[in-house]
């Protein structure tokens, strides 16, 4: 498998008159966990929206699993979790997840939903309405709805925000397990200690890729002790 799951060339995006991505090039190798890091407003969510085909773009090429982003054939092969949890507040966790299973044409939506809810460790709240959940629980319900169709590519916009260390560790375990099964994951995050769990890191600042490397290389190159230090070193270097 030499082909990249995501290939972006010269992606140019303007949002409300503001040039957010001036010309982005990015590769996400198949079967890897790639972390998208960077300061707030740097364009992480915009890149992810372009990959799943909901972002209006001005120019450039975005190819996903060998097809143009947003291609109808991709819609049951790509799972997407928006930054703000997007589930129906007046439906239960199980109802939300099985609804997305039905939309994806999964054979047994109830069973598939139970399995996805189990994977995000929310079984005890499966019958709760999502507007009665904590922020982190709602985020996990939103994640379960993306897992349910067994997608080949998962685009996760800050899936671990607001979670305690134990849950974060468990979810990263899940992401690793999915990658071992051949799933490609593009995950954005603010939490720097999560960076070391990725196969590759992409540092995005003001729409430009500051670095695209393995975590080990990044530390070596910057001489920093941890991902946070490497990140700060690179941001300072770019600003200088």
């Amino acid at each position, binding site marked *: 498998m030499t082909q990249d799951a995501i290939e972006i060339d010269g992606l140019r995006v303007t949002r409300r008159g503001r040039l957010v991505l001036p010309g982005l090039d990015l590769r996400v190798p198949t079967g890897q966990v790639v972390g998208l890091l960077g300061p707030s407003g740097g364009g992480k969510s915009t890149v992810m929206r372009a990959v799943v085909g*909901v972002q*209006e773009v001005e120019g450039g090429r975005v190819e996903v699993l060998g097809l143009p982003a947003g291609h109808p054939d991709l819609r049951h092969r790509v799972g*997407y979790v928006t930054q703000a949890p*997007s*589930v129906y507040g007046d439906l239960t966790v199980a109802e939300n997840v099985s609804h997305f299973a039905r939309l*994806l044409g999964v054979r047994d939506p109830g069973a598939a939903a139970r399995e996805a809810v189990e994977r995000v460790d929310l079984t005890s709240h499966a019958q709760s309405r999502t507007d009665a959940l904590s922020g982190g629980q709602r985020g996990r319900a939103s994640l379960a*709805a993306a897992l349910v169709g067994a997608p080949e590519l998962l685009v996760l916009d800050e899936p671990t925000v607001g979670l305690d260390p134990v849950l974060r560790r468990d979810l990263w375990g899940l992401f690793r397990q999915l990658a071992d099964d051949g799933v490609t994951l593009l995950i954005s995050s603010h939490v720097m200690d999560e960076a070391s769990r990725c196969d590759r890191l992409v540092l995005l600042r003001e729409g430009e890729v500051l670095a695209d490397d393995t975590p080990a290389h990044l530390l070596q190159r910057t001489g920093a002790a941890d991902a946070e230090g490497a990140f700060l070193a690179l941001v300072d270097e770019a600003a200088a």
Partner: protein
Amino acid sequence: MNPRLTVVTAGRVLRQVLRDRRTLALMLVVPVVLMCLLAWIYADGPLFERVGPTLLTVFPFVIMFVVTSVATLRERTSGTLERLLTTPMGKGDLVLGYALAFGLLAVVQGIVVTSISGWLLGLDTEASAVWLVLVVVASGVLGTSLGLLASAFAATEFQAVQLMPATVLPQFLLCGLLVPRDQLPRALELLSDVLPLSHVVDAATAVAQQVQPRGDLATPMLVIAGWIVVALVLGSLTLRRRTP
């Protein structure tokens, strides 16, 4: 377009609405209360017989417009719309799913409100009550379709509510309830000819005044059906998969 996805969507929307007591009350109880008030206001006169059938058909139009436009707006603001549009769901499937769900609710509303107005309040039309139910349901479905279309022009639930007076009240003034449409100034008469609510009132008038309303019902019902189709098609065309 995929009928399976339309049905899945309709099922989900119905489940949400049935769980929301306020919306159910707005659809089923409020029109009944309004009709009771009307009957009380006109207790000793023949006016209830005259305006009753018309208002009975206008109320569902307004209520279904508000309920549908706010419900679809909620989909947009909650982020679930962005997510749905990354699934195999087509724009038409989503709009038709909503139309189907609220259309079914409009049928229930039409039957409940018309039956209670007949039995409890003695509202009587020349034509049989079945015709009246038909017009009330058509009016509710029309309100639903226009609400779906209107929600495309709003970004928040508040804006959706603002659209209601801006689009519905002018139609109310021109629909023939205050002044018969053929007595309006020529320009206004022409305008009222194209507005959908005018035809709801025409249909209600035919049912109220004629034992065999079929002849006078055909034109307004066709115009209403045309508006429903146009609103649903425009509603799905204005839905954007890619947004700025």
